[in-house]
C-alpha cells in the first residue's frame, strides 16, 4: 500500500509491492512476513546516534555538575573527584568513575525560565514563535540521518517514558515514537491473517488516496504517511529492539529495575538496532521545595543508570558513535528559597555530554563563586545544538524551508562550543 511515493530504499523494499500481490483482491493469499524475513538485509550502520537524557522540570545543576561548596548558595552536598576534570556531587560515585568519557559545559546561559518555553527552546534551538513550530533535535536527526539509513524499519526518533520533542514543520512523519520504559507497545498486533490485513490495507488505501487528492491541506497526507510508517513498524522484525526482556538477565540486573534504568537499557538496544536518536525521559526535577532531600533519592538513581549506560556503550565499542547528553530546560536558582528548594534559573547552568566524538573528561566554561553568573564565554541552546549536529555529521549549512516558505537554518546559526569538540 504505497500511499505516498517515497524515495526507493527508504522503506522496506519489498513490503509494499508484495502487499498488492498478497491481497485477495488481486491474487492468491500470501504471507508477506516470511518473505520479508528472507529479504531483510543487514542494516548498514555508518551513522552516529544520540541518546538525550531529558531531565524535565529543570535539574539543579549547581548541586550536580558545578558545585559551590562553602558558598551560601552551595547547598548541603560535597563534591568528589572523578576520572575526568570535573568534580561532581558525592551522591554519584559510579558516574564519577565514568566521567573520563563525559564533559561538562558549565557556561550555559539562556533566557527562557518557564517550563514550556524553556523546554521548547532547549530542544529546538529556537524561542517559541506563535507562527511557526520548529523541529526538535530528534526530528532534525530523523530527517537528516534517519531517512538515509537503509533498511531501518522502526522509527528513527524514539522517546522513552515521555512525549519527546515535537517535529514542528517537518510534520508527523518525524514525530517521536513514544514508548514506555519497558519497551512494550500497545496494540501492535491486529490478530488477523496476513492476507486479511492486506485486504484491509488495500481498501484503506483507496479511501486515503481519494481524500488526499481532494486538496484539503496537509493533514490527510500526513495521516497517510504515518499509516505507512505504522504498517512498516507492525510488520518489522526490528521490533525485537524494543524487547528489553530478551536481554540477558545479567545485563538487566546490571542496569537495574527502575524506570530510568530500564529506559537506558532500551536506549542502548535501540541505538544498537540503528535508531539515530533516542530521548530518555527522567523527570521530576522541578524542585521548588525540599531540593536536597529529593536529590538524595534522585541522584543515586541517575548515578547508577547513567554510569551503567556509559560503561556499557564503552565496553561494546559503541561510545565512539553514540553521543550521550544530559540536560533539562534550565538550571535552578543558586539561591535556596524558604522551602529549602531552588526555583527556575536559566542564566548560569550546566549540561553534560560525551561520546560520539565529543571531547571526553573535560570541563568547559565556568561560573562565579556563588554560581549566579557565567564568567567565561556563555553558550546558548543554539550553540549546543550546532555542536551536537556537527558531531553527528549533520551539516550546519543545512537549511530547511519552513512551511511559511521562510528558510530556517539548522540549530539557528549557533556557534560551535569549541571545548566540546574533541
Amino acid at each position, binding site marked *: 500500500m504505497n500511499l505516498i511515493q517515497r524515495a526507493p530504499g527508504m522503506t522496506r523494499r519489498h513490503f509494499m509491492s508484495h502487499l498488492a500481490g498478497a491481497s*485477495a*483482491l488481486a491474487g492468491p493469499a500470501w504471507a508477506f512476513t516470511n518473505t520479508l524475513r528472507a529479504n531483510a538485509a543487514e542494516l548498514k550502520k555508518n551513522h552516529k546516534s544520540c541518546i538525550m537524557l531529558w531531565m*524535565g*522540570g*529543570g535539574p539543579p545543576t549547581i548541586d550536580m555538575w558545578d558545585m559551590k561548596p562553602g558558598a551560601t548558595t552551595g547547598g548541603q552536598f560535597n563534591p568528589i573527584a572523578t576520572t575526568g576534570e570535573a568534580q561532581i556531587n558525592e551522591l554519584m560515585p559510579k558516574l564519577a568513575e565514568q566521567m573520563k568519557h563525559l564533559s561538562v559545559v558549565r557556561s550555559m546561559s539562556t*533566557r527562557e*525560565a*518557564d*517550563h*514550556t*518555553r524553556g523546554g521548547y527552546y532547549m530542544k529546538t534551538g529556537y524561542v517559541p514563535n*506563535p*507562527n*511557526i513550530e520548529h523541529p526538535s533535535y530528534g526530528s532534525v536527526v530523523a530527517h537528516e540521518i534517519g531517512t538515509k539509513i537503509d533498511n531501518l524499519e522502526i522509527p528513527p526518533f524514539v522517546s522513552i517514558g*515521555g*512525549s519527546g520533542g515535537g517535529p514542528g514543520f517537518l510534520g*508527523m512523519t518525524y*514525530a*517521536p*515514537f513514544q514508548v514506555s520504559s519497558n519497551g512494550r*507497545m*500497545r*496494540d*501492535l*498486533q*491486529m*490478530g488477523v491473517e496476513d492476507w486479511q490485513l492486506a*485486504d*484491509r490495507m*488495500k*481498501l*484503506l488505501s*483507496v*479511501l*486515503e488516496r*481519494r*481524500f488526499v487528492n*481532494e*486538496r*484539503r*491541506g496537509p*493533514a*490527510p497526507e500526513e*495521516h497517510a504517511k*504515518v*499509516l505507512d510508517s*505504522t504498517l512498516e*513498524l*507492525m510488520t518489522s522484525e526490528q521490533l525485537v529492539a524494543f524487547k528489553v526482556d530478551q536481554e540477558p538477565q545479567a545485563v538487566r540486573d546490571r542496569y537495574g529495575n527502575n524506570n530510568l534504568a530500564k529506559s537506558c537499557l532500551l536506549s542502548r538496544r535501540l541505538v544498537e538496532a540503528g535508531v539515530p536518536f533516542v530521548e530518555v525521559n527522567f*523527570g*521530576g526535577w*522541578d524542585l*521548588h*521545595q525540599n531540593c536536597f532531600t529529593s536529590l538524595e533519592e534522585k541522584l543515586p538513581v541517575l548515578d547508577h543508570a547513567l554510569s551503567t549506560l556509559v560503561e556499557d556503550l564503552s565496553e561494546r565499542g559503541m561510545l565512539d558513535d553514540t553521543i550521550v547528553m544530559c540536560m533539562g530546560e534550565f538550571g535552578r536558582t543558586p*539561591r535556596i528559597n524558604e522551602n529549602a528548594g531552588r*526555583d527556575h534559573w536559566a542564566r548560569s547552568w550546566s549540561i553534560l555530554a560525551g561520546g560520539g566524538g565529543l571531547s571526553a573528561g573535560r570541563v568547559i566554561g565556568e561560573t562565579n563563586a556563588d554560581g549566579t553568573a557565567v564568567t567565561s564565554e556563555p553558550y546558548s541552546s543554539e550553540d549546543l545544538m550546532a555542536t551536537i549536529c556537527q558531531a553527528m555529521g549533520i551539516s550546519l549549512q543545512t537549511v530547511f524551508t519552513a*512551511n*511559511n*516558505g*521562510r528558510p530556517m537554518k539548522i540549530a539557528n546559526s549557533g556557534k560551535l562550543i569549541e571545548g566540546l569538540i574533541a
Partner: protein
Amino acid sequence: MQCIIALKSQPARFTFVFAVVAVLIVAAVTSDCMAADSSANSTSQNSSQLIDDLVSKGWKENGFAPSKTATDSEWCRRVYLDVLGRIPTVDELNQFLKAKRTSQRDAELVDRLLGPDYVQEYARNWTTIWTNTLIGRTGGTDRRSPTSRPGMMQYLERVLLENKPYHLMARDLITATGDARPDMDNFNGAANFLVEKLAENGVQATAKTSQIFLGMNVQCTQCHNHPFNEYQQNQFWEMNAFFRQTRRNLEQMMDDDEPKPYATLVDDNFGGEGRMMGDRRREVVLEMRHGKLVDRDGAGVHAAPTYYELRNGQVRVAYPVFVDGSSLAAKYSDQGEDYGNSGAIEQINRRKELAELVLGSEQLEQSLVNRYWAHFFGHGFTKPIDDMGPHNPPSHPELLEILARDFRDSEFDLKGLIRRLVLSKPYRLSSRMNSSNVEDDPALGRPPMFSRFYVRQMQAEQLFDSLLVATKADAQATDDEKREMMKDRWLRQFSTAFGNDEGTESTSFNGSIPQVLTLMNGDLTKKAIRTKGESFLGRIANDPQLSNADKFNYLYQAGLSRKPSKQERKICTQLLASRKGDVARTLQDVWWAVLNSNEFILIH
C-alpha cells in the same frame, strides 16, 4: 519603642460594607439582564451576517476567493462533531438531508441540537471540553490528586444543562468554596478548578485564571517582566495576591484501602507574609512615628502584603491589583488607606473582589469568543488563543470586538454564540482549496482568513463518542456511568502529565504512530467491527431489507456521512466476491477501513 502584636480578625464593624457591595453586584447583574433582553437570540441571525461581512472583507483584501460551500452532509457531520462531539447517525444524517431545502433548514438543525432533545448530549460534550480546559486531561486522574474530576464534571454539567450565563460560571469557579468530592457533605464541584492550583502560593491559580478567563498568558512574569509582551512581574504578583486568603484543607480517609485526599476550599483571614506565626498570623512590628503607632514595615495594620523577588534579588511588595490597574486600595480608599489591602475576610474577600473585576473586564468576553471561534473554525483570532494582548494582535479585530460585545449583551449566552458561529457562511465552506486560496493556511504562519474550512483531527473524546455512535460499541455499557468509566480508561492511555509547576501535559492522540496503532488494532476498534449476533455489523449483515450495495452504502454513511464512490463500490464488490459471498466478514473489513481512514478521523 517597639511592641509586637499579632494581627487578628477584625471585629464585625465592617460587615455592613460587604453587604452593600453585594447589593451593588446584584444590581449590576440585573441591569445587564434587562439590557440583554432586547438583543438576545433575535440578533443571532444578524450576527452571522456580520461574520460573513467582516470575514469576506479579509478575503477581498488578500485576493482569496472562498472555497465552495460544503456539501450538506459534510456540513451536517461537522456540526454534530463540533456541537455534540460525535458524528451523526445514519438516521440523523438522512433526516437532515431529506428535510425540505428552505433557507431555514440549517438553522433548524442547529436549533434542534441546541434544544431540549439533545441537551444531555450537548452538556456532556461541553462538560468534557470545559473540564479539559479547566483542569487539563490529567487533572484529578491520579489517585493522590486532591482534585475530583467527577466533582468538576458534575458542576459543569449542571451549568451547561441550564445554559447558565458564562460570566456566572466564571464567578462560580473563581470564588468557589466547599468540598471537592461529590461524596462530601459540603460538595461544591466548582471548587475543583482551584483545588490543585493553590499549591506554591497559588501561582497556578493566578496563571490559569488569567489565561482562561482573561486570555492573558502571564506564566513567565512570575519570575521576570515578560520579554515579548507588555506584562510586568508586579502584575503577576498583584493578581496572585487575590488568591492568598484561600486555603485548601486536606483530609485523608484512613479507613480506605488506598487513602484518597478529601479537599475543601476555604477563605480565611490572611495576615500577610513576613515572619509567620503558628496559625498564619503575621508578626507585625509597630513603632511610634509622628506620635502614632504604625507598622514599622510600612504597611498599616490592616494591610496583608505578599512579597516577590526581582531578578536582581530586590524584594518588592504586592497587594491585590487587577491587571487593568484597578487596586482594592483605591476602591476602598474612603475606608482608609490600607483598608482595601486588608487580609481580614470580614473586610475584604479578595476572590470575590477578583471575580467582580473579571466580570467587569471586556477581556472576559473576548477570550471566550476567541476560544469558541477556535473550537469551531480550527484556528482562533490569535495564536495561541489564550495569549491575547497588544503584542499579539488578532486576525479580525473588528469582528472579535463586535462578537464579544454582542456576547456580553446577550447576557453571556453560550448557546446563542454557538448558533451564530455555526450558521455563518465561513463555517459553511468546504475544506477543499481552490486555486486562489491555497495560501490561506494558518499552518504557513499566516493569519487565518477562513476562506475555507481548515481540516483538523478529532479529539480523542470525539473519536470515542463517534465510534460509540457509529457502532454502538458500548452495547454492554448501557448506563452512562459505565460508559464514562470505559471512556476514561480508554482516554487515559493517551495523556501524560509533565509533573512540573505549570501543570503541562501532552497527548499522544496527535496523529502519531501510537494513535494509528490504537485505531488499527485496539480494543475499541475490535469491538466496533464485531459481527456476531446483535452487533452493529451483525444486524446490517443480516438485514433482509438491504441489498449488498445498500449495506456498503450504510457503512460509508455511518462513518463518513457520504455514499461510496464508484471505485469504492467496485472494490467492495470485488472483496465480497473473493470472500465467496460472506457478507459479514466483508463488511467487517470495509468497516475497519472506513474507521481507519483520514476522512473518518478528520473534521472536514
